Structure formats: C-alpha cells, structure tokens
C-alpha cells in the first residue's frame, strides 16, 4: 500500500513539475502580455494542483490533507480572478499607451542580469 501511494506521489509531483516548466517557458517565450497570461492561469495552477495531489498521500493527518486542498483552491480562485484583472489592466494600458511599451524595447528596459 505504502509503495502504491509513493508511486502516486512520484507520478503526480513529477507531472506537476512538468507543468511548472511549461508555465515558466510560456511566461518567457510567449510574444505578448495577454498570451503570457495563459502560462499564469493554466499551467502553474495545474502544476500546483498536481503537487498537492502528490502530497496528499504523504499528508499524514486528515486536517493536513484538507489544508492542502484549501491551499490549492485558494490559489485557483485568486489566480483566475487576478489574471483576468491583470488582463484588463494590460488592455487599458495598451489603450492609453502608458506602460505597455513595444516588445522591441524589452532589452533596454532590462536588468543587471
């Protein structure tokens, strides 16, 4: 039984890690703000969900498992809402052209890295 549970954990957490990878790649590679939002809304929340799923067998107590699920639900709710709000703000900024600078300037805008 223990072994089976560990199998579940390993598979789910590995899948979760993969989705985090996908989300990050999307965040970095997608061309503009609104497409990058997909990385935020979909891949990462799914990744966290899978990690939570994988941790459930290891949670030990029922309360621990319940709290794990609560964490995921909260992140889902907040992530979905906030990403929609960010999309609106991004659109508004593009409209009155405040901060939505063209992509070509991304590098000058850059960083010590």
């Amino acid at each position: 039984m223990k072994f089976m549970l560990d199998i579940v954990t390993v598979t789910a957490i590995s899948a979760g890690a993969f989705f985090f990878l996908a989300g990050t790649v999307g965040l970095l590679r997608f061309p503009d703000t609104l497409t990058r939002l997909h990385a935020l809304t979909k891949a990462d929340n799914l990744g966290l969900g899978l990690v939570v799923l994988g941790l459930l067998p290891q949670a030990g107590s029922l309360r621990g498992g319940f709290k794990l699920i609560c964490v995921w639900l909260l992140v889902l709710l907040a992530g979905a809402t906030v990403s929609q709000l960010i999309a609106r703000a991004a659109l508004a900024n593009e409209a009155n052209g405040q901060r939505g600078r063209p992509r070509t300037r991304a590098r000058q805008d850059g960083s010590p890295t």
Partner: protein
Amino acid sequence: MTIAAALETVLAALILAIAIWTIAARETFAAVAGFVVYGLLLALVWVRLEAVDVALTEAAIGGGLSGVLLLGAAARLRATETRAVMERPDKILRLGAAILSATVAAGLAAGVLLLTDPAPTLASAAATNAAATGLGNPVTNVLMAFRATDTLLEKVVLLLALVGVWSLASDRLWGGFPGPRHQADPLGALAFLARLLPPVGIVVGIYILWAGANHPGGAFQAGAILAAMWLLVMMAGLTDVPPVSSRRLRLVLIAGPGVFLVVGLGGLCFGTAFLAYPVASAKPLILGIEAAMTLTIAVTLGLLVAGAPERRDGQ
C-alpha cells in the same frame, strides 16, 4: 555537497539576485515587484531555519501588506521618477557608500562565521518554563509571557505610527476618510473576489490565532490576515474606510493594548508583578489578550496601509 545543501545555496543565490535587482532597478515599480518576490522567498528561508512563526509573519507582511503599501505609493509617485534620476549622487559618494556597505556586510559575515556554534541559547529555559503558561508554542510563550512587556510596547508603537500617519492630514481634512475612495464595480471580478475571499480569510485568520497557542501562529499573523481581507473589501469599493474621527474605530484601536494593560495591572495588584499571570488562569488570560489584540492589529494595519485622511466626505 548534499542535495539539501545545494538547495540552500540555490535559495540563497536567488535571494541575493533579487536583493541586487531591488537596489539596481531603474523603475521604482520594478523594484517593488522584486521586493514582493523577496518577501516570498524569505518565508522559505525562515521555514528552512525552523522558525515557522517568523515565516508566517514574513508571509503576511512581506508577501502581502508591504506589497500593497509600496505598490500604491509607487503608482502615485511615478511622476517624480524622471526628476529623481537626475539627482543620482556623484561617483565619489557612490564609491564611499559602496566601501562602507561592503565593510558592514563583511563585518556581519564575520559575525556569522565566528559566532560560536551552538550559540548560547535560552531555548531550554523557555522549554522548562512552558508549564507556567500552559501554551505549547514557545514563541507565543516568549511573546505573551516571558517578554510580554516588549509585545505590549510593540502594539503601542503600532498605534503611535498610526497617529503619526493620521497627523499628516492637512487641517482641513483632519478627521476625514483615509486614502482615495475606490470606485465599486459590483459585477467586476474584483468585487467577486472581495465577496468570496474574506469569509475564507476570516476563518483562516481565526485558525492561525487559535493554532498559535500550541503551534506556529499567533495574534499578529492572524491580525495581518484579517487586515488584508479588510483592505481587499475596501479596494474593491464594497465598503469605505471609516473616518478617523469615528469613536467606535478608536475604541477598537485601543482595545488590544487596553486589555493587555488591564491584565498587566491586575498582575501588579493581585499578583507578584506587572504582567504576572496567575498560573491557573494563564492560558485563558493570554488567549483573551491575543483575541483583543488580533482585532486591534487588524484594524491598525489596515489603516496604516490606507494612509492619511484625504477626503472630508465619503465620496
């Protein structure tokens, strides 16, 4: 090098990178975004250092409230950035500052390296005296019993800071409403979140307060969560900030320290010393103080983020 050690090195490197970015970033907004991430990673560090109470505080303050405070200010001050760039100090001053900072950092690092390991500790003392309060969380014991005066004065500092913020209002606006009035969009996503999240947040906050007796948690962390929920409802425009002249508001603000003081003086009158709890009723007393404290902390933090009075009327 074990995998755990590698992990810690990665985490430390990340934190350093963000720290550099927070200082070097061109735009204030970018620096604030970096600072929010910095607070998030610090929570990880605190967990790694087995200080979960502190991690909770860091998550609530660094991850949440500071971000709101600084982002709001950055948004309002954006206009002044271009001017400020011209005031960048000259090379000599920058060099001197770099040398000074490097010396300080080196001194701190030396302190870290030379400090005796294991360091002198009061952990055993705290553990042996834990029975006096009946609480299982040593940090809560230290905060609420062994060094209760610090905590009492800390709450007074919070109040003083709030009085300071309020007193920045111009005479005309004194007693008015803090911060700008946020327009409500009753059907918007933000209003939806502001209706759905606070109930959950209140439950979590009370849970953190209750867990604080025997597990990591406590009044301040709970208060910070409640404050964030209140701010969310205010930012969504579902409710307005109460005017600072409201008497009910001010009663809530002094409730926590008031209860704390009364209990402390009770210890002075009927017990052995100021804030000396009778062993039999130590736990209920402490929990009572913490409950009152949580309410006060929530309101104080919320108002600290809301800022100085800026409107005479509720519009």
